[in-house]
Structures are given as C-alpha cells and as structure tokens.
C-alpha cells in the first residue's frame, strides 16, 4: 500500500513516477534526518543499558520481597501513558523545572540551562520512557540463569567485576539484545516525545511523516519517508538480532 502510494509524483496521487523518491533521496537534509533519527535510537539504547543493566543486577541479588517491589516500579511506567511520561519530563527539564531550580539553588549555575529542545534532554527523557522495554526481557533471561555459575566464578577467585563481564553479561546476552531492539525501535518512532521535548528544532523522521501527511497533505512523500523509517529501523533491528544470535552461539559453543 505505502509502496504503491510512494510512486506517485504529485500530491493528488494521479501521476505515477519516481519523483518523490528522487526528491527525498536527492536532498542532503533527508540523510541528516535519517542519521539523526538512528543516532537518537543508539544514544537512547546506550543510556538505557548503562543504568538499566545495573538495576537488573540489583534485582537479581535482591530478596523475593524486594524483587516484587522493584518489578512493580519497573512495570508501572509501562502502564502510564507515554504522553503523561513526556509531560513529566517537561516539568522536570523546563526553565523553571526541578533540575534548573536545584542547580541554581546549589549555586552551580546562575542562568537556567536549556534542557528542553535539546538532544540531551530528549535522550534523558526517552531513557526513562523506554526503560521497562529493556528491563523486562533482561530480567526474564537473568532470573533463569543458574546462580551456581556466578558462585562458581567467585569461588574460583574471580572478582565481582570479572564475574560480571565473563559470566553474567555473556549469559544474559539474549535478553539484553531483545531489550535493546525494543528500546531502539520504540525510541526512533516515539513521535510525541520527539515533538514535545525535541521541539521543532530537532527534526526526526516521525515528525517529517506527520508534517507531510497531515499538515502539507503530500501523501506520496509521507509514504516515502515512512518507508525509509521502516527500512532503517528494520535494518538496524535485524543487524542487532544477527549479532545477538552470533554471541549466543559463542556462549554455548
């Protein structure tokens, strides 16, 4: 359907042709938007893993009671509307928001920092918004790991760092990869968060699709952008899952 519509030259969908593809692919701006969107996904995945993985480790070592509380906290945001979570970050990152108020009162900064409408602010927000998607598959794989393996590693004299990188991380790789895929796919297409926190200055593919289809009503062009998004996300996702399968083979082989 989308493929069909994308091969029309004018926005009335009457003249077939490659015009829209040529227009999109001939514009250096398009490549910048594609790269920006993919980089946003990569940065969000990195930030999520950096703080999400330790949380999963703490969950693994926690008592069953604490585990129940933790899983509740982790799942809770998932049931909360994305719009609410995005809105929360506006309150936190805004000019008169928590971060700025705190930093100014501590005397670290004198002028409010611009956090909204920057990529940094967007990545921080997406980290929270997408965190459950990483943690759920990760925790499900981790809790099936044989705890004896970690004990054995410790008993054989490995430090906890060594145990983490030589035993726990490789064994939890399937969960980690699955989580990263979900976070990546979700953050690159998080339209609401991208437009509200990123504002109009940061342009990503979803915003372009929305503008072209519902503001300019150039459906063929919107179809082109939308297919680009689909293909780029699927490419990264399949590359990652291929790597994930290979690392899985390495552990078992």
């Amino acid at each position: 359907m989308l493929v069909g519509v994308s091969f029309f030259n004018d926005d009335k969908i009457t003249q077939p042709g490659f015009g829209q593809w040529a227009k999109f692919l001939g514009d250096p701006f398009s490549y910048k938007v594609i790269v920006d969107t993919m980089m946003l996904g990569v940065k969000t995945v990195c930030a999520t893993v950096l703080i999400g993985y330790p949380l999963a480790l703490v969950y693994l070592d926690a008592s069953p009671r604490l585990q129940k509380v933790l899983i509740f906290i982790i799942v809770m945001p998932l049931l909360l509307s994305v719009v609410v979570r995005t809105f929360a970050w506006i309150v936190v990152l805004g000019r008169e928001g928590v971060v700025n108020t705190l930093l100014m009162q501590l005397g670290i900064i004198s002028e409010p920092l611009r956090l909204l409408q920057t990529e940094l602010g967007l990545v921080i927000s997406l980290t929270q918004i997408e965190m459950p998607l990483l943690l759920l598959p990760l925790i499900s794989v981790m809790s099936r790991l044989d705890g004896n393996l970690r004990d054995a590693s410790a008993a054989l004299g490995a430090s906890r760092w060594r145990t983490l990188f030589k035993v726990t991380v490789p064994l939890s790789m399937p969960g980690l990869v699955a989580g990263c895929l979900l976070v990546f796919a979700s953050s690159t297409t998080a339209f609401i968060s991208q437009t509200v926190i990123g504002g109009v200055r940061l342009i990503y593919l979803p915003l372009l699709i929305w503008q072209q289809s519902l503001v300019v009503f150039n459906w063929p062009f919107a179809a082109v952008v939308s297919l680009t998004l689909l293909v780029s996300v699927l490419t990264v996702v399949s590359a990652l899952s291929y790597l994930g399968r290979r690392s899985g083979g390495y552990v078992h082989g």
Partner: protein
Amino acid sequence: MGRRRSLADLSYSLVIGTLAALALLIIVAPVVIVLTTSFTEGRSLKFPPTGFSLQWYEALFDASKSRQIHRAVYNSLEVAAWSTGFGILFGSMASLGLARNRHRLARVADGLFMSPLVLPGLTFGLAALMYFTLIGLRPSLNLIIAGHMIVTVPFIIRTTSASISQLDPALNDSSQSLGASWFYTMRRVTLPLIAPGIFAGAFLAFMASIDNVPVSLFLSTARTDMLPIRMWGMMESTLDPRIAAVSGVLITVAFLLMLIMEWTVGLTGRMRE
C-alpha cells in the same frame, strides 16, 4: 583474599549500586514530581509548587470548562472497550488455532500477528489512513476501533499463547476420553485454565489502546478526538496546568489498576515470562 580484592568488590558495589539508584530515581522521580505539581496554587508548572490547591482538578472536572477533554476521554474509553472486546474474541481464537501448530503457514501467521509490536506504529497509522481513504471510508470512531484492534491484539495473543503452552495436553485428552464433546472440553477445561492469560492480555491491550498515539494521530479528526492526541495538543500550544491534573488522574488509575491486576492474575509474573 588480599586487600585489592576487597577494593575491587567495593568499587563493584559502589558503581552498580549508584547506577541502579540513578535508574530508580529516573523511573520514579518524574511521576512523583508531576503528582505534586498538579496540586499547585500558581498558574505555571513550577517545582517546587507554590502552595496547595485543587483548582486544576476542579477545572478539569468542570463540564463547561473542559468539554473537549471530557469528550476525548469518552472517545478513548469507547474505542478501548470495543477494540479490546473484539481483540479478546479474535486474539484467543488465533492463539488456540496457532497453538502447537507446527505448520509453516502457522509460523508465518504468528509472525504477522506479532508484527505490530515491532513495526513503527506511525508507518502503520499512515498506511491505515491511506488505505481507508482510498477505499472511500471517512474517518470515524469505527475506523479507529479497527485500527486499534490490529495494534493491540498481539498483547492478547502473546499472554494467551503463553497460558496455552503451559496447559497440560493430558487434561484435554482425558476430558475427551471421558466422553466430553470438543465444545464441552473447551468450555469446562481449556477456557477456565487459560482465562487468566486472556484477562492479563486484555488488560494490556486496553491500556495500549488508551495510550495509542500513532494510529489515533492519523485516524482521528476534530470530532473523534482521542485523549492522548488532545493532551499532545494541549502540551504543544500552551503549557496548560490541567495536563498535570489529567496526568494525576491517569497515574492514580494506572496505579490502582496495577494493584488489582497484581492481586487477581499476577500481572508482573506474566510479563516476566
């Protein structure tokens, strides 16, 4: 057991502990902050809020001031209810049909049903809009229901399939060998056993429908406004503190629902599987 060893372990606990604490803070803090801000006395969304008042909640529940929001809420609830209802029907039939079916076509169908979970929702929303328009349908609430059903039914299929795979096939066999008809077995043995799975999936599907942006964005019009789209509009134009009040209500509802689901079907345990 040298001193270096304990130092390394100490640094491990320190680094992992700090990062995990940071993660928890990032997850919980915004929710708490929005809740507190919604009770502000001022006209802007400052933190810490100045004073305490319920004025934004009053403005929100006032039918004359917030008519648009109310209509969006009703639309969202209606769409979620219908799409979940149909979703339960189709989803549980699909999972029963696909369960233990090793045929290649079944694998393909399985992937097809799950694809809305991975594919960008915007792409699907745009495609749905074009498809419906080209076959001549005007945007309406029914179209939104259909669109939502497609993107939320995977949740039902996933939890139901998980329940079916844990079902002991011997139960069905014994029911049938004792002379029960296929329908009777389904009604008295299979369905009661997989009901918690269907229920958990329906709950997730309902929440996903309420929260859905990509499909609603393309299929809703001014007349069929949906809550998330309405809230997005409110955030884009002016920072209306009523959003904080809406968020406060949604947070409370989500929290209560989650407690209920935890007690009845053990939702978190299901999601970890």
